[in-house]
């Protein structure tokens, strides 16, 4: 039964950590090529991007489609999506007693890098102010706070691959005073230390995780204490930096240049992505992918841009509005030469039909496509940096494409509570249009009476409502129906939406 000592020792090797190799670097504020690797995970070539998730899933992309149809080396997960029961109850995820509970819970493939942060990206400003020990979060049931200790303990329990340190940033505040900025830097340092201490107390058998240190979106001299301490006694404990303002990259201390840079500075367009890349940013979550998808816009651009044939003054659009009737008879793919699932299996006419019919598959297909477009975009960027034509390619891209993504014309999918900003003094408008707004309340009463249905009594009864059949009934009220006005139609919950 004796196992050779050397083999026993192999098992006791410290867990292998994240490795970042700079493959090409031309200067301090210049695009660079790198490779982020961790044993058992797919390497991520940088500049590159990781998936931006909501409740553990890239919106509209179920886990099987993620495996089959999305090529992503990593995902970003926000802790605030998992702790809605806190502090009244222990959130369920912490009771899942398996190795790597978070990965297992959300059914993330073994080879995908899992990056954990506190807040969604971009975060919705929390009216609950951060304190010296607490950070404000927005969960699906409302605003709450967690302590820095709680965050560190959560990281240890959930065993992600990378943990982004808590940053004290008063999101949504227009002007931040000097004193507040001082506090930002102090708290961020304390919170990062808490995380490092927690990491240090882990025993060898536990799965390790790497720490990305937040770099605040304030001038260097205002976070100089924090940065100084970071360099003095924390730099060997961190494996990357999380950048909240890409345009302050020139102030990043030299000693941190070897570390991978994860951007939390949400770009609004591919042009802004290029600008950040040109300053040396490595890794992104790209929130505009999902914004475009929800707007029904299929991204349609390449990097480098195609060669302009004639000097026309009009620039090409960055995306296609799939709501447009122009596609009703179009059997072409969303983008020419795109090899994504949507483009190889389906065509524009179908996607347009799905959006018009409010079928969820429409957004699924556009989301798969949009991720493929951004994947190809980053591959193009890396090739361009490799051959040294990046600057001219960027200029050509900017000349070829319009600067902004197309406006949304149709309706998106239903917006959930944790997806929009709730403002105390804002007008109470509906976040989602009524599902059947051509019917007045009275018409629905008539309809219901005609069908003898009783909404919301029991789930079983409620299910009897044929919402598909309702679709065809608009504008037919002149035919007499016995109406029972007592039935409260406002409560007709066809989509089972949740209100707080």
């Amino acid at each position, binding site marked *: 039964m004796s196992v050779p000592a050397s083999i026993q020792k192999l098992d006791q090797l410290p867990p292998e950590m994240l490795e970042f190799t700079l493959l090409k670097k031309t200067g301090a504020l210049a695009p660079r090529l790198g490779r982020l690797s961790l044993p058992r995970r797919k390497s991520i070539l940088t500049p590159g991007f990781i998936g931006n998730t909501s409740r553990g899933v890239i919106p509209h*992309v179920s*886990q*099987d489609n993620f495996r089959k149809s999305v090529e992503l080396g990593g995902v970003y997960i926000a802790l605030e999506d*998992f702790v809605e029961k806190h502090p009244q109850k222990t959130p369920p995820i912490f009771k899942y007693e398996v190795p790597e509970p978070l990965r297992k819970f959300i059914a993330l493939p073994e080879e995908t890098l899992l990056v954990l942060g506190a807040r969604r990206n971009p975060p919705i400003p929390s009216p609950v102010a951060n304190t010296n020990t607490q950070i404000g979060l927005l969960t699906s049931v409302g605003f709450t706070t967690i302590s820095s200790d709680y965050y560190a303990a959560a990281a240890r329990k959930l065993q992600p691959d990378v943990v982004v340190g808590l940053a004290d940033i008063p999101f949504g505040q227009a002007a931040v005073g000097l004193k507040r900025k001082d506090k930002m830097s102090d708290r961020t340092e304390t919170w990062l230390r808490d995380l490092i201490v927690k990491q240090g107390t882990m025993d060898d058998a536990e799965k390790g995780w790497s720490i990305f240190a937040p770099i605040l979106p304030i001038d260097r001299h205002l976070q100089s204490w924090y940065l100084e301490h970071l360099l003095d006694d924390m730099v060997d404990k961190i494996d990357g930096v999380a950048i909240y303002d890409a345009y302050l990259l020139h102030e990043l201390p030299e000693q941190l240049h070897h570390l991978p840079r994860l951007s939390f500075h949400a770009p609004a367009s591919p042009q802004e992505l290029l600008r950040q890349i040109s300053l040396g940013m490595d890794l992104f979550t790209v929130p505009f992918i999902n914004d475009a998808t929800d707007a029904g816009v299929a991204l349609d651009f390449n990097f480098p841009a195609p060669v302009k044939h004639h000097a026309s003054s009009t620039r090409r659009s960055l995306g296609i509005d799939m709501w447009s009737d122009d596609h009703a008879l179009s059997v072409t793919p969303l983008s020419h030469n795109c090899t994504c699932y949507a483009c190889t299996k389906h065509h524009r*006419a179908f996607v347009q039909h799905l959006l018009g019919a409010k079928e969820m598959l429409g957004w699924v297909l556009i989301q798969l496509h949009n991720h493929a477009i951004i994947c190809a975009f980053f591959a193009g960027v890396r090739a361009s940096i490799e051959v040294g034509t990046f600057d001219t390619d960027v200029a050509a891209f900017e000349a070829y494409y319009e600067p902004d993504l197309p406006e949304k014309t149709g309706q998106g999918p239903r917006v*959930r509570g944790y997806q929009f900003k709730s403002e105390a003094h804002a007008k109470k408008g509906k976040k989602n249009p009524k599902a059947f707004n051509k019917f007045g309340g009275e018409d629905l009463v008539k309809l219901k009476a005609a069908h003898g249905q009783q909404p919301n009594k029991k789930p079983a009864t409620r299910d009897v409502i044929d919402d598909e*059949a309702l679709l065809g*009934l608009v504008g037919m009220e002149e035919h007499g129906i016995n109406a029972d006005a007592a039935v409260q139609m406002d409560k007709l919950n066809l989509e089972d939406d*949740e209100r707080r």
Partner: protein
Amino acid sequence: MSSVIPRPIMAPASMPSALRFELLGKCSVTKARAATLHLPHGPVPLPIFMPVATQASLKGLTPAQLEDQGCRLCLNNTYHLYGLLQLPHAPLLTNGRGLKPGQATLDAVGGAHKLQAWPHNILTDSGGFQMVSLLKLAKVTEEGVRFLSPHDGSPMLLTPEHSISLQNSIGSDIIMQLDDVIATTSPDHARMKEAMERSVRWLDRCIQAHKYPDRQNLFCIIQGGLHLDMRRECTAQMVARDTPGIAIGGLSGGEEKDAYCSVVKACTELLPEKKPRYVMGVGYPEDLVVSVALGADMFDCVWPTRTARFGNAITSRGVLNIRNAVYSEDFGPIEKGCRCTCCRPTSEGGLGITRAYIYHVTAKETAGAHLLTMHNVHYQLNLMRLAREAILKDRYPHFVRDFFSKLYDGDQQKYPEWAVTALRGVGVDLHSD
């Protein structure tokens, strides 16, 4: 009375068929049958549950995901395909003259299979089912169903000829006749008889209008409400017209389950053995299991996919509402041993999704609905697969007893009386061991 229905010119006329019904086994006790139905887009096992992809999409699932759950035959809804594919501003059907912009779209795209990239079989309804819901809003005449355009309120007419023409454009493998559907619970006997007889006359018009009998199978629909005599008369008339398959329609509209079972039994007793029998709109697991025992082969229902969107999971122990907080810390699969994409463990190529995760995403992310929809569709398909295996081994009575025992946790007192009665009628005593 029978003079209202024209006798078929040649009874039984040999109508071309684009399917082959291969009967593989019959239960020696009940009337259950196992068969393979060879359709233009491949064979499907019978008995079968057909999920409803109303608008050419199964509630968020890609065709590949639907395929992964084992589905080879799904439903599309003519009314929705047609209504939604039409260009705006163009009327659906104008005064019976049949301007058909939706058809132009379908023709340009090359039919419903191409539209939704579904390489397997499709069944379309006639558009008549919507008329059940529209009944008080639409008017049925001998010509067809008059109703107002859902787009601009202009008067429209759906005739048997239009319905078939639309389904010809859709290119579905099984097409349904336009029938005069009224709620089975209607007390108006005369109207019921009129509807039954009209459905037969409309079938003749559908047969006449059907352009591609060599590649699309027209099914007749037996009407007659809950009146067994009327059902029997209709069955005889329909059978004489020799369509490739036969449907029993108008049920699943809130009638008593006992009455439902009597109708299905009365019809199947008169139906030829060598043709598929489709009971329209039926979908609860108990209904499927009992209806199979009564001799039915095909079923469809929106319930499994709709209820998934409400967070309900179908399991052999009943329907679980996963939005209930008790599941928030339940780290087991939706159903142990289930082979669907969600429940199958990762070690076997599945996702290993837990009830707790469904609780976490359902009604919050569309992907939550996708996951449960896959599970529910798989459950229904698998239930019919297991029924088929049992029939082939001539163990269907055992299967039925086992099914009810699991569903009611062994408590025979809880068995629904209608199921006990209906099964007793075909030789199965649920209360014996």
